[in-house]
Structures are given as C-alpha cells and as structure tokens.
C-alpha cells in the first residue's frame, strides 16, 4: 500500500478546507454562460457576480457542451464544480426558443442536485438607478429577504425558486450579527403564478422612538422579472441524504434532571433492589472467619487424626 500524501502544508490546508465538514460554511457560486448570450444576460451575470463578490467565480469563456437539463450535458458542470469547489452555479444562455435564459442550480457532492430555469425580462442594471451614494450596500453584508405573494407557497415551481434564491444570496450562516451592518434587502414579489419581480434594495435605518429603527427601502441594485420556465426537483433519496444533519448536533433531552430556582439542579437517581439472598459468598468474606474459628474450636474436642508416621524402611 502506498500513501499519497500532499506534504506541502499549503496544499494540505487547501484540501482540508474542501473536505466535508459537520457544520457547513458558505457555498461558493460559479457563474458561466453557454454558446450564445445576449447583452442583457451578460449584464445580469456580471451584476450577480458583483452582488456576491467574495464567494463567487465568474468564467468568461463560452462553454459549448453544457446543457443542464439533458442527461449528458451536465458532465462539464460537475467537473467545474469539483475543480472550483462551488456548489451553486448560474448558467446563462440565449436562444430563440428561450431568450435570456438563466439556469440556477445546486450540486450535492459535486453532482447536480436540482435546477431552476428562469427567463429574464425587464432588466434594469445597477447603473440605471440613481440614489444617494452613501446608501450603497457593502460587499458581503448579510441581506434581508422579503418574499411576497401566496403563490410562493401554493405553486411548486415558485416554492422551489424561493429556496434556490435564498440559497444563492444568503451568504454565510452566522450566529453573531452586527446590527449596524444591515444594509440590503432582496425583495421578491409573485406577480403571477410563474412570474416574480426580483429587486435588490438598500436599507436606510431611520430614527424612531423605540429601539427598533424605521426601515426605508431604496432601490439600488438590479431589478428584473423572472419567468419560471423549467425546473427539476432533486431525487427523493438524494434529498433525504442532503438534508441530514449530524446526529451530534441534535440536542439531547436530559432525563431525571430538574432545575429548581431555590435549590438549584436536582437529579433523581434510581437504584434497583439489592438481592441479598442470592448473592454468592466467596471464601474471602471477613464474616466467615468467625464461623471458621468456632467450627475449629468445636472440632478440637475430638481428637485430631493422628499423623501417620513414616514407616522406616523395613
């Protein structure tokens, strides 16, 4: 057996970063496009890249062989996902049948997990909005999400799209959040059963009487209409596996412990009955020494059996 170990520390650290972890940190996104793109699509892709500047990779070349919805056309995507360690991808393509097409996809273990195909209409880029520059959101800040419309609950495709959009723009899951750094919102409104209006706004926190500031939304970022075209759900078994959380993380219920404010922590201990009669007694039990001594005393009355003298050789 031979061990292939990367001995260089830097490479080893990089590989360990890509190893599966119990609790996962932010997902990276891969942005690329197919054979033909339109100017609208190009700007959409660049703007998404700018929105997710720290954790996304944008490929500039065209990729012919990628067809996410066909069985053979995913190999390239999976390969890129493996090489760049990206589990989300945004694939843009333009054709007569599907103009301004954007495929948002996720991978699990570098294999395609699910896909949502969306058409972009009425796109307005970031430059077209005029606003006070001081409000511009910082790169990498944690965004608010606002989903409006009952269609997000009732229509299967929009439900899927909601999940994918959340995954795409969420960023890292953090426990400690600095309230001063909240400055962006993604607003998604379901206009009809297959169309949503997506917009990115900056937040302005205004003084109000209470601790909670008053929120004001100012449109800054790209805004577009997304028309859901096709989508593919993940396999049930794959979904089950991907949704698994580590068993150690689930909180264990502690039994027989009660916290009292007066007395503190109280615990109940259950002791089973001791079976005294059935226990076998060993020879080393001290109590038996008395018995033995008594028995010996009694036995001394009767003459001890005389020791047989050795008969000398006759």
């Amino acid at each position, binding site marked *: *057996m*031979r*061990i*292939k*170990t990367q001995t260089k520390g830097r490479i080893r650290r990089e*590989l*360990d970063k*890509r*190893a*599966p*972890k119990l609790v*996962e940190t932010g*997902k990276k996104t891969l942005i690329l496009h197919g054979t033909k793109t339109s100017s609208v699509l190009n700007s959409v892709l660049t703007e998404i890249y700018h929105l997710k500047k720290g954790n996304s990779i944008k490929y500039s070349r065209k990729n012919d062989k990628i067809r996410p919805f066909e069985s053979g056309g995913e190999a390239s995507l999976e390969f890129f996902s493996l090489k760049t360690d990206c*589990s989300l991808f945004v694939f843009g393509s333009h054709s007569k049948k599907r103009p301004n097409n954007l495929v948002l996809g*996720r991978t*699990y*273990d570098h294999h395609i*997990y699910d896909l949502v195909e969306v058409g972009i209409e009425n796109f307005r880029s970031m430059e077209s909005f005029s606003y006070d520059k001081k409000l511009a959101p910082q790169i990498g800040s944690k*965004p*608010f*999400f*606002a*989903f*409006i*419309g*009952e269609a*997000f*609950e009732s229509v299967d495709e929009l439900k899927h799209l*909601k999940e994918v959009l*959340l995954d795409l723009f*969420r960023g890292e*899951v953090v*426990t*400690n*959040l*600095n*309230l*001063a*750094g*909240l400055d962006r*919102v993604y*607003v998604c*409104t379901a*206009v009809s059963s297959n169309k949503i*209006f997506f*917009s990115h*706004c900056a*937040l302005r926190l205004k003084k109000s009487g209470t*601790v*909670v*500031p008053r*929120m*004001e*939304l100012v*449109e800054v970022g790209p805004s577009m209409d997304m028309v859901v075209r096709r989508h593919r759900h993940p396999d049930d078994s794959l*979904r089950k596996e*991907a*949704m*698994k959380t*580590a068993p150690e993380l689930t909180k264990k219920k502690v039994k027989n412990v009660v916290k009292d404010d007066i007395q503190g922590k109280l615990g109940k201990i259950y002791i089973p009955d001791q079976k005294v009669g059935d226990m076998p007694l060993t020879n080393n039990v001290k109590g038996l020494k008395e018995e033995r001594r008594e028995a010996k005393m009694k036995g001394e009355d009767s003459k001890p059996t005389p020791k047989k003298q050795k008969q000398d050789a006759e």
Partner: protein
Amino acid sequence: MAETQYEVDLGNLLAFDAHHQFASPPSSREEIVKEALEQGTKLVQAVADALFNLPSTEDLEGPIVKLPAPTSRLPREKPLPKPRPPTKWEVFAQKKGIQKRNKEKLVFDEQTGSWKRRHGYDRVNDDNDIPIIEAKATDEPGTDPFAERRKEKKSKVEKQEKNRLQNLKQAQKAGALPSHIQLAATSLPITGTQTMPKKVSKDELQNVAGMAATSTASGGKFDKKLPGEKPPKHEKKYRKFLPAVEGSGMGDMERQQTEKVLNKLISKNSHEILNVEKAVNMYNVKREKRQRKQGGGQSSSSSKFKPNKKSFKKTSHKGSSSNKGKSK
C-alpha cells in the same frame, strides 16, 4: 392590506408574506414596483422588530446580537463526514487513562546551560551528537555502538510508519480517510487463495474496442464512435518502400534490407544447403575405409563413395535450385 402574520425566519433574516394577493391585476410596471417596495418595507420592519429586541452586547462597531439558527432548512453541499475510528494508540491511551500532555518547545540543556529547542536544528539530546558511548558488560567487542543506535532508530521509524499505515487503512475501511491522503495499492503479494484482480489499463481497453471492431464486415470503419474514443490506429501506408535516392552506392538501409532477407532464407533452407544425412554417410564411409585399410588392406572401389564436394557450392544460388528435387 390587512395586517397579517408574516413567517419570519430570523436566522436567515427572512420574512415571507403568504397571504398577499394583488387586489387587481397590476396595470403598469411602476405599480408593481411600488407595491413591492411597500410590502417589502413592511416585511423588513417585521424582521427588524424581532431582531432588535434580541439581547445585544455593545461592541466598538455597533450592537451585536446572537442570531438563532435558521428555521428553513437548506440542503448540504457535501455529504456528512464520517467519524474517524480511534487509532491504536488512542484506544490504548483511553483504556489506561493516559492524558495528553503538550510539551514545551524549549528545553533547558544542562550541558550547555542554555535553552535549546526540543526538535530541529541544534536540539537537545541529539542522537548524532554523542561523542562517547561507554561499553556495557553485555556488549560484544566487535560491534559498533553508533551503528547499533542508528539501526535501532531506523527500525523505530519503520515501525512507526507501519503503524501509521495500519491506522490509515482502518480509517479507510470506515470511510473516514483524511482529505489530503489517498491510499493506492501498488503491488500486493499473492496471498493464499486471493490474488489481486488484474486491473486493465486505459490502453488495453482502447485496444479491445479496436479488436471488436475488426470482427465487423467492414473492419470497424463505419462504427459509431463514442465521444473521446480515438480512431483505430493504422498507418495510411500498407507497404514500406525504401527511399529512391539515398546517398551514393548501396546505402545502409538497402544493405540492411538485403542482409535481412538473405539471413532469413539461409536459415530457412540451411538444412538443404547442408545435407546432414549425406554428410553423416560420407563420414561413416570414410571411417570404414580407414578401418578396412588398417584391417585388411583390401581396397574396394571407392569411386562410388567418393565425397562429392560439389554439393557445398550450392549456397551461392540462394538455395532455390536445391529445392527442386527435395520434398521438404
């Protein structure tokens, strides 16, 4: 719009209004935008309400709150890592109750009276630095103690490497190999009943496809090729000719070619060039003649048995003439 309960997911800073409906089909785009922003403001306000009411600690940059875990679950990107099985040492240490103790990097060296590092350049108790080793009573006179120490160290290192490999194999069995390590089986000894199944190489597999193709009527020329399959290896030329002009006189290649042909032919027909039977007969005859001469002195007409020397000269004719009568 009636004030309804929004679904708020604090961990994701998400607010979802599941009850909103457009009262009338929106006429223009501005209306949609306006409506969206209005509703969005309400939703964000709801989230912010919950958010700012969390207990916060003051920091330099601003108040920091502890966010709860997100309620809407999203799929993982990589499978759960499997727990690593404990190594042999770890099992032993647990059983014995041995605690891990971190050693300091600097150790005080009595000899020099300074602090030296534990490992690395100029270390304490370096094995190579010992100038004198006192002989023990058990030592044999001829052995070299320095060489012995070196051998011992080497065996220790080998043993440690073997143990490390065993631990990694156990980890691989459990599926929990560390990500920067790959175990590859190079050459396995043939142990008893099981031998390693021979792994077919990439080249062999490519050749197999070609071999299958030759069984078709058209020699595999019109078979559909899979992507990535290379065309069958075949040179355009079926016959090789020597270059027309190559230097002056009989060039090297031509000479080699003729030499090759000659050698082949001679070796093929060497049994006809040298007729073994005839040679044996001639030798026997000679011997008999000698014996008779010695024995009797009676000379028999040996004209019949005279050696025919002409047969050896047939080699110059490339052996073709000798084939005529022979049925070999």
